[in-house]
């Protein structure tokens, strides 16, 4: 009589272990955050820190989505995105500041340049079969040089966007601005609505599955899942509400992240990215146009880089020669820490977001405890290595 009960508790234990393993990076993120909150005597938990995290890391989330798609196809990367950000910033400065082009037309032009570069890069990689890291190394070398040369029109090698308030408000402004330290109601309401939507979606999905007779998770699991995500959303938005409102860049990041989450998890084209990375020959013989997937990966990367370029220029209110430096490495690190396979075929947008946030939290925390900038780099390097080692070891044990 005892047996089934014992069995059940065993299953629960196994479930719990796999649950912990699945969410290990998220748990580490929370622990690291708590660690820095203690180290900074609460400064890390203040509204300003939340706002900084979003503003400082917006480009990682956006470029990270593109890098994720590239890496899914088989561990391919784009080395040129950082330098491309510099070039686009310089071109944007020329258009808006020197040639006096309108904001809307300039944004469209910058996106168009992204599309052109993406098509060229995609064609070279997918149809000429140049290995991606070589094809993008060319851009890595050329674009910063080109960008810096263009910036030479200004004696300071930098073009200021201070006169272009319209552009700045689109990419680095604040919606429903209120003074810092006061509660910004629209911001909180957006958070509450988003949390409600999450809860609604989870339970609607559950109801539909029950109706169709499919298996569902235990109700406790669903409650815990959406309860925690809703709480996290409300916490972030509540904190932001005291920092002056919703940063517009959060809207961009949110839109990009949600869009790519949907593409990768729900659509046929997203599925094709995974199977191309899993086994390109099997994908090809199953009728997947593998070259088209490679082409789209790099076209998509260039478009996202264009968006990230505009948020970056806007955040610093200037285009300069150092813009976008190491962006490619930051995006790759976010993916790798977030569990994206370096050989392709596995990884999620949510994982990348957690990875990017973890690195962002460590950066901000180290800055706030006044760690020497050189040692910050050392820590970042080891965090990256530790994350990958941890990932490989935990997967080995799972087998």
């Amino acid at each position: 009589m005892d047996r089934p009960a014992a069995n059940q508790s065993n299953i629960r234990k196994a479930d719990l272990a796999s649950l912990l393993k699945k969410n290990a990076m998220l748990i580490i993120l929370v622990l690291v955050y708590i660690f820095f909150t203690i180290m900074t005597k609460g400064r890390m938990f203040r509204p300003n820190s939340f706002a900084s995290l979003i503003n400082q890391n917006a480009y990682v989330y956006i470029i990270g989505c593109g890098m994720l798609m590239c890496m899914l196809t088989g561990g391919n990367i784009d080395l040129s995105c950082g330098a491309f950000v510099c070039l686009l910033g310089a071109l944007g400065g020329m258009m808006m500041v020197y040639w006096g082009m309108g904001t809307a037309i300039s944004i469209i032009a910058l996106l168009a340049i992204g599309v052109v570069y993406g098509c060229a890069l995609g064609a070279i990689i997918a149809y000429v079969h140049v290995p991606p890291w070589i094809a993008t190394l060319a851009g890595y070398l050329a674009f910063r040089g080109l960008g810096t040369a263009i910036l030479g029109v200004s004696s300071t090698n930098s073009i200021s966007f201070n006169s272009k308030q319209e552009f700045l408000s689109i990419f680095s402004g604040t919606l429903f601005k209120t003074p810092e330290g006061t509660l910004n109601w629209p911001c909180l309401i957006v958070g509450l609505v988003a949390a409600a939507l999450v809860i609604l979606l989870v339970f609607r999905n559950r109801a539909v599955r029950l109706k169709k007779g499919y298996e569902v998770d235990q109700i406790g699991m669903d409650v815990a899942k959406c309860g925690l995500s809703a709480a996290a959303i409300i916490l972030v938005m509540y904190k932001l509400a005291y920092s002056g409102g919703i940063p517009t860049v959060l809207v961009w990041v949110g839109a990009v992240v949600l869009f790519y989450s949907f593409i990768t998890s729900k659509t046929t084209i997203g599925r094709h990215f995974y199977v191309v990375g899993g086994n390109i020959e099997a994908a090809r013989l199953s009728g997947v146009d593998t070259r088209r997937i490679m082409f789209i990966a790099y076209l998509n990367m260039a478009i996202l880089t264009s968006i990230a370029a505009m948020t970056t220029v806007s955040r610093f209110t200037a285009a300069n020669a150092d813009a976008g430096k190491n962006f490619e490495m930051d995006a790759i690190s976010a993916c790798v820490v977030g569990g994206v396979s370096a050989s392709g075929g596995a990884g999620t947008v949510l994982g990348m977001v957690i990875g990017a946030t973890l690195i962002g939290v460590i950066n901000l925390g180290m800055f706030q405890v006044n760690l020497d900038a050189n040692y910050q780099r050392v820590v970042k390097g080891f965090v990256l290595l530790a994350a990958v080692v941890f990932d490989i070891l935990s997967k080995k044990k799972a087998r």
Partner: protein
Amino acid sequence: MTNYLLEMRHITKTFPGVKALDNVNLQVEEGEIHALVGENGAGKSTLMNVLSGIYPYGTYEGDIVYNGKECKFNSIKDSEKLGIVIIHQELALVPEMTIGENMYLGNERGHRLAIDWNTTYSEADKYLRMVGLSESSKTQVKDIGTGKQQLVEIAKALAKQAKLLILDEPTSSLNEEDSRALLDLMLGFKKQGMTMIIISHKLNEVAYVADKITVIRDGTTIETIDNHGREPVSEERIIKGMVGREMTNRFPKREKVKIGDVMLEVDNWTVHHPLYPERKVVDNVSMFVRKGEVVGIYGLMGAGRTELAMSIFGQSYGVNITGQLKINGREVHLKKSASDAIKHGIAYVTEDRKGNGLVLSQSIKVNTSLAHLDAVSSHTVIDGDKEYAVAEEYREKLKTKTPTVEQLVGNLSGGNQQKVLLAKWMFAEQDIMLLDEPTRGIDVGAKYEIYCIINDLAAAGKSVVMISSELPEVLAMSDRIYIMNEGRFVGEMKASEATQEKIMAVILQSGRSA
């Protein structure tokens, strides 16, 4: 008492779920050429891998006695140190390197810090002369033909001071003339006292060079035939040992199926090798399949069967493909893409399920829907529940053993992986199923289930082409059999009239006339 250079006693090797070798005994005398024959999957290669230490001591049962001493090899290095050198069927040469560099790869001349190139090339030249090659050892390997590359492999083995040379299908990629030269070279080495083991499908060659022939079937040694008599042993005698197996209930009964019109017709189909475009891999082949019919294509490995099927499947293999393709009586010109072939109702179920059939890092569900993703999605958005239901349906239909369809395919056994592969193409609802070695590397029970699936496919009116190198399977499952050898169709028989001996005879004859 005879002096054995090598004795392998009671070797048993088990892989998860399969007993690959079961109490195998092999005795090789010093200075003889010993042939090892058997069908594909009989265990010849496994046995040689045990001998050379690829499967280290402890992973098998039984003893290896070499030169009077018991050996416990942990790696291929250990066995090579004693002079046991294996030359694999696939040539393992680096095309961009010179012959000399290749010969001493991993065995470099000179001292620890620098390679002594003078010694390397002068010694390499010496061994090249021994195998009858006049090329300089500074020639790049890609610049010499396959026949000469095979000789370089042998020279490489000699350079390792080989005492026991194992040649795995050394002539499989050679033409008649090169093959004969190679065999004569072997006889020459024998005179100088070298001991050799040759694995071969070409029985006429075996009868020509071997002193003794050991037959392996289903992982056990059947017999060792002495070839010292005045007359060389007859090929029929060897075949009897190879194929004489019991056939009780290894195949499900075929129900009478109404056979309909011709579904797929291929005329004068010729395919060239993608890397060596002057080489014909498929040579002027014509065939057809009717609805509800199972057509077997029998041929040994390397006969061009896979290449034929893949070239039909949207030119997935080969270059300069010529010939006509008719589907349902209408001529079609498929674009060079698998998706175009799929649109025309063709499915190619690969022989290499791990290499190009399945995405091992993905779930059963993802693999099942892969070739027909549109059917479980609307406006490119996948309906996850529907996809799950489809995968469940095929799991039940094909009796795939797995706790859930979310299981990664890489964690399944070979037989279950094969079922997932079949499920993928059954769900794709194709009319023409090209099955390439559908039962390779899976155990007898799973084979039976795959045969049932094939019968069901035919009963549902599909046209099935089954490529196989297992004669009993071809005989039991097909309505009609094409026999393929060296890129050509050399015979066609109704299954009711075919026997194993007849088919083997056709292949041997075609080999002689060529």
